[in-house]
């Protein structure tokens, strides 16, 4: 096998700009403009990979993304990228590529032994064996199967590159820039509509460079260059190459990937490697062209066997010659054009084999080529590289072959016709239609605002493609209410003949253990289709799943049509009757990094910070997430453990005074004449008669009667409340209130608005809390009459306005001080200064937990969405004199069943800490779980809250709290969940 570089050929390469690259460590050279595939072919290296299951040698088969065989790994470390199709890898200086799925080397691969076992490794073999007696045998076998399977290796290092995202808007998106796409763009551009023309390859023009015909007097390639130049000067036209539309989603939203820097060694500064485009299109024209179809014969996967049009592109665009002695096997006229073009480019085509008996002999116009008609290639031989083919006469009626003779060739080009690339059209849900002439499916009539144009519609000749493009443009303009283009049909002559294929499914062969591949990448042979058929997997869906045909990285681009034809033949029905499966996004594999963009790592989702965040960080706070807020958990001194810290903080509150940041609580402004009535309908307890200047603790139920949220609402005036909610439920509470007001109670005149970010909030708690605030809030009367328990008043610290509410979550005398957000840190510092005399201590969520557990107040762990008010001891708060959200379903038998779990307190007997998530056993019966635990400085014991079956009946009993995960067990005394200062005297100390 000796490929070489054709002297001064290759439209895309620059022969005086050499590039160095390595493949499996061996160094080669190519030119600027080469792809990895074209450079390897030019260096005479055809074999580049080992196949998935049988580890058969494989070479380059195509010249585009449909490549089933030549999959390689690129780069290394964090940039290692497996399973890259060699024909789409643009060469750059220093490119480092290596083969996959072969050990120890590509040429000597131990796993090639699978070919010996190939009679066993047929479709579905793994369903019939490896079962052994128990699970162990499968686990043992699976270890090896996973190593043999898979193609490339993934890196364990993080990918260093950046990925960006963009939302783009266009009136008409044209996918594909071949004859149809360019004609459509040229026709639509003058209308002023916003046109976006995208093409997946690095160059625009599609199949035009190989087109023989000329357009309006220009040679096809010149016409393309001229059209592209004109389009680039029209500002309502945007053109993007290296951009693949991979997905067609609802409402004409397209997902696409722009390869920004893949053709460079590394991206430049801040340049993304790839950019994900979400394109919002009013109209779409899909001019995605078609893919040449393989032929199915023994050894058709031998390196050196390649699609004919691909070989032509390698010669014409890259000056890469696939072989010295080339044969071409065709079932349509287009094969002849390709052969003669290759000869003209200097490729030594010696033999043409045409399966058709009767052909128009005008095609055989090169005396140096040996034209053999009515014959088929029955086998390609040579193992790692093609050395000869067997040819035999073919009787189409009996589908049988005559005597074979051998022809020595080093390259065999095959063309079985063209398959329209209908992936995107199929994704929209429009059923495909079978076109008998081209023996392939084409897009059905669009059910959405898109049209298909060109080869994708089966119009394979240049003139039809151009006309398709113009009419698609006009229909799109009309749909947009714009005048049609005045572009007349283009004069075309001398175009390539149309590829009308002669139906050829499986080519017979005399070799009993013939290997005829239908899906190269998943090693699915004709034999596998037969087995699937025999075992009843006959529908197209079953055939695909049983043989894994079309489920590899190329998603059946070159295999689907042949498989459907063979299957229909096995079932004795037509291809349209057999039908086809629906294509799924993506059309081509898409990097996860591209879909993720920059929303990863630290930026995975936004963070909410309180105004005092920096103060906390400067004072040794360890932060913790609450919803998506960050809150201080503890302020650890240098030598303290977490437990030491929270005990110190909680004790300070009990004995003197502490301050905690409560900004993260949800805050909702409720205004309007019916504000009180509204609260009375959504809270379970009464709210109509709350006095102005007073706060009230309220409980909200879900519509199904379970607890939803709790918090205090402060009446600021007759017609205004400030409601607080738990951190996690702020958004759902606001949304439920808006739903009720808009959809169910439009008669209530109430407005609700989020003011969570308007107020910084801090609780000052402890016996010295009043003395602390008294010093700096001089315009508030802190006496019992001036500011009674649950009272709310306005004041100021210096010129900073504050609201002061006498509330207590800790059970101590306490005040919540709210100030507009930007005054937060200043007010916090003033309070800290005022509290110095009383050794004021900042405390975090741990100490807050200790204090509220000692008081038996509920929080998140007790509000797990399955508890009723009665379960947590709040049953009596629910008003019986009014209806409220959830009031009816709260009475369902399951919610008032005596055997429900209710909240109790637990005291650990033997001074061992209790763990949240422990379960409480009554004997051996699991009667509930521990929700919140802490060390209680007030009781000097480890205590907890728990939800246990008929909790109130267990008061006074000793049970055991177990933590089987760490096989620990504590004996605990069950008590009322209100451990400390039951009468609430501390509030008035």
């Amino acid at each position: 096998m000796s490929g070489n570089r054709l002297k001064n050929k290759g439209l895309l390469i620059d022969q005086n700009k050499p590039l160095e690259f390595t493949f499996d460590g061996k160094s080669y050279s190519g030119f600027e403009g080469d792809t990895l595939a074209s450079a390897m072919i030019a260096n005479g290296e055809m074999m580049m990979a080992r196949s998935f299951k049988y580890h058969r040698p494989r070479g380059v088969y195509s010249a585009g993304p449909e490549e089933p065989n030549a999959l390689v790994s690129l780069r290394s470390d964090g940039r290692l990228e497996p399973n890259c199709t060699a024909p789409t890898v643009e060469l750059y200086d220093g490119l480092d590529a290596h083969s996959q799925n072969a050990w120890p080397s590509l040429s000597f691969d131990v796993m090639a032994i699978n070919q010996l076992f190939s009679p066993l490794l047929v479709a579905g073999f793994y369903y019939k064996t490896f079962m052994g007696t128990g699970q162990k045998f499968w686990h043992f076998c699976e270890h090896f199967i996973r190593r043999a399977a898979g193609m490339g290796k993934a890196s364990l290092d993080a990918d260093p590159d950046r990925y960006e995202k963009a939302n783009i808007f266009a009136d008409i998106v044209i996918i594909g820039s071949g004859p149809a796409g360019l004609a459509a763009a040229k026709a639509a551009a003058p209308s002023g509509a916003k046109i976006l023309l995208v093409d997946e390859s690095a160059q625009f023009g599609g199949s035009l460079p190989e087109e023989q015909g000329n357009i309006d007097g220009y040679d096809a390639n010149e016409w393309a260059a001229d059209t592209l130049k004109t389009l680039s000067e029209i500002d309502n036209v945007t053109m993007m190459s290296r951009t693949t539309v991979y997905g067609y989603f609802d409402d004409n939203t397209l997902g696409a990937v722009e390869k920004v820097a893949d053709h460079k060694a590394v991206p430049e500064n801040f340049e993304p490697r790839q950019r994900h485009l979400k394109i919002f299109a009013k109209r779409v024209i899909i001019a995605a062209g078609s893919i040449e179809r393989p032929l199915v014969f023994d050894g058709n996967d031998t390196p050196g066997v390649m699609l004919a049009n691909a070989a032509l592109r390698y010669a014409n665009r890259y000056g890469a010659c696939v072989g010295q002695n080339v044969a071409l096997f065709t079932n349509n006229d287009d094969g002849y054009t390709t052969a003669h073009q290759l000869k003209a480019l200097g490729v030594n085509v010696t033999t043409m084999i045409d399966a058709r008996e009767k052909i128009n002999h005008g095609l055989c116009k090169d005396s140096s080529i040996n034209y053999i008609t009515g014959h088929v290639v029955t086998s390609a031989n040579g193992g790692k590289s093609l050395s000869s083919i067997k040819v035999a006469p073919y009787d189409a009626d009996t589908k049988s072959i005559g005597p074979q003779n051998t022809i020595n060739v080093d390259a065999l080009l095959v063309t079985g016709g063209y398959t329209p690339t209908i992936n995107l059209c199929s994704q929209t849900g429009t059923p495909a239609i079978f076109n008998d002439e081209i023996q392939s499916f084409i897009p059905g009539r669009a059910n959405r605002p898109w049209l298909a144009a060109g080869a994708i519609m089966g119009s394979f000749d240049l003139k039809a493609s151009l006309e398709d493009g113009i009419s698609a443009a006009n229909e799109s303009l009309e749909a947009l209410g714009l005048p049609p283009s005045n572009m007349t049909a283009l004069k075309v002559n001398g175009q390539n003949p149309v590829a009308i294929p002669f139906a050829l499914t499986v080519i017979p062969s005399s070799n009993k253990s013939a290997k005829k591949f239908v899906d190269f990448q998943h090693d699915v042979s004709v034999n596998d289709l037969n087995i699937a058929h025999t075992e009843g997997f006959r529908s197209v869906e079953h055939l695909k799943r049983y043989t894994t045909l079309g489920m590899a990285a190329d998603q059946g681009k070159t295999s689907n049509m042949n498989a459907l034809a063979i299957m229909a033949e096995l079932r004795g029905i037509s291809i349209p009757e057999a039908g086809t499966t629906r294509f799924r996004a993506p059309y081509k594999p898409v990097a996860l990094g591209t879909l993720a963009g920059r929303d990863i790592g630290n930026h995975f989702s936004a963070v909410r910070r309180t105004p005092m965040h920096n103060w906390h960080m400067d004072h040794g706070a360890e932060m913790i997430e609450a919803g998506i807020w960050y809150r201080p958990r503890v302020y650890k001194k240098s030598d303290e453990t977490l437990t030491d810290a929270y005990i110190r903080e909680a004790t300070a509150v009990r004995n003197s005074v502490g301050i905690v940041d409560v900004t993260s609580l949800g805050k909702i402004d409720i205004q309007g004449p019916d504000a009180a009535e509204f609260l009375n309908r959504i809270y379970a307890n009464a709210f109509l008669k709350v006095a102005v200047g007073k706060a009230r603790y309220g409980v909200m139920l879900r519509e199904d009667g379970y607890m939803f949220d709790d918090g205090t609402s402060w009446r600021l005036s007759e017609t205004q409340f400030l409601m607080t909610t738990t951190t996690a439920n702020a958004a759902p509470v606001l949304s439920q209130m808006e739903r009720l007001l808009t959809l169910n109670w439009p008669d209530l005149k109430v407005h609700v608005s989020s003011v969570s970010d308007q107020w910084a909030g801090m609780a000052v708690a402890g016996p010295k809390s009043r003395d602390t605030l008294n010093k700096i809030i001089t315009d508030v009367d802190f006496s019992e009459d001036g500011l009674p328990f649950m009272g709310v008043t306005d004041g100021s610290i210096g010129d900073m306005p504050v609201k002061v509410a006498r509330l207590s979550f800790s059970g101590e005398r306490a005040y919540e001080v709210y100030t507009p957000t930007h005054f937060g840190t200043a007010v916090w510092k003033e309070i800290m200064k005022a509290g110095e005399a009383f050794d004021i201590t900042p405390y975090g969520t741990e100490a807050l937990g200790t204090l509220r557990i000692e008081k038996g107040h509920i929080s998140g762990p007790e509000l797990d969405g399955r508890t009723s008010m009665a379960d947590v001891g709040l049953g009596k708060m629910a008003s019986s004199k009014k209806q409220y959200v959830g009031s009816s379903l709260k009475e369902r038998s399951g919610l008032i069943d005596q055997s429900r779990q209710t909240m109790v307190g637990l005291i650990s007997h033997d001074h061992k800490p209790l763990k949240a998530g422990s379960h409480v056993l009554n004997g051996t019966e699991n009667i509930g779980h521990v929700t919140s635990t802490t060390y209680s400085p007030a009781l000097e014991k480890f205590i907890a809250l728990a939800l246990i079956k008929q909790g109130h009946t267990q008061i006074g009993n000793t049970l055991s709290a177990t933590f089987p995960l760490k096989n620990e067990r504590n004996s605990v005394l069950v008590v009322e969940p209100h451990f400390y200062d039951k009468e609430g005297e501390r509030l008035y100390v």
Partner: protein
Amino acid sequence: MSDQLSIKEVRYQSMVLIKSWPDSAQKTDAILAAFLGIDALPVVGDFISQNDIYFAVISPGHFMMFSNNELLCSEISKLFSADIASVVDISHSRCGISLNGKNSDNLLNKGIAINLTDDDLPGMSVLQSSIHSIGIIMFKLQHDDYLIFSYSSFFDSFYAWVIDSAEEYGYALT
């Protein structure tokens, strides 16, 4: 508009929401028009800016004003009785940036799926949306010239997103 993408933090002394009801819409509109000294309020999705007061119509009966005049909120709340409209002081709940210059549209379109070209979103338009799941309100003054506010607690995350998105184009912090 300068060809350099520039980003500047901005803060206004007062910001206020005004919400009326259908039966008090006429009255509210009239009071606001009088206060602003104009004969008719802008339509939904538009805003006006005159003598340092920005006035925007978010949706029917839902208005937003901001200004560096500290007393704006108290002045406005004196204009309305409780049954006509509600006035909510949100002066501290929003932090903003001014984003202008070349590539402003491209930067925003990294996070917003809304057509920002002039014919789809003319100058003096206001819209609410979200970037990186952060709620924002955006005022388009003219082509490539925006005022964008996020909620205060989200501002660090929002600002980091804007800067990271600007890296590719190069930017100036003014």
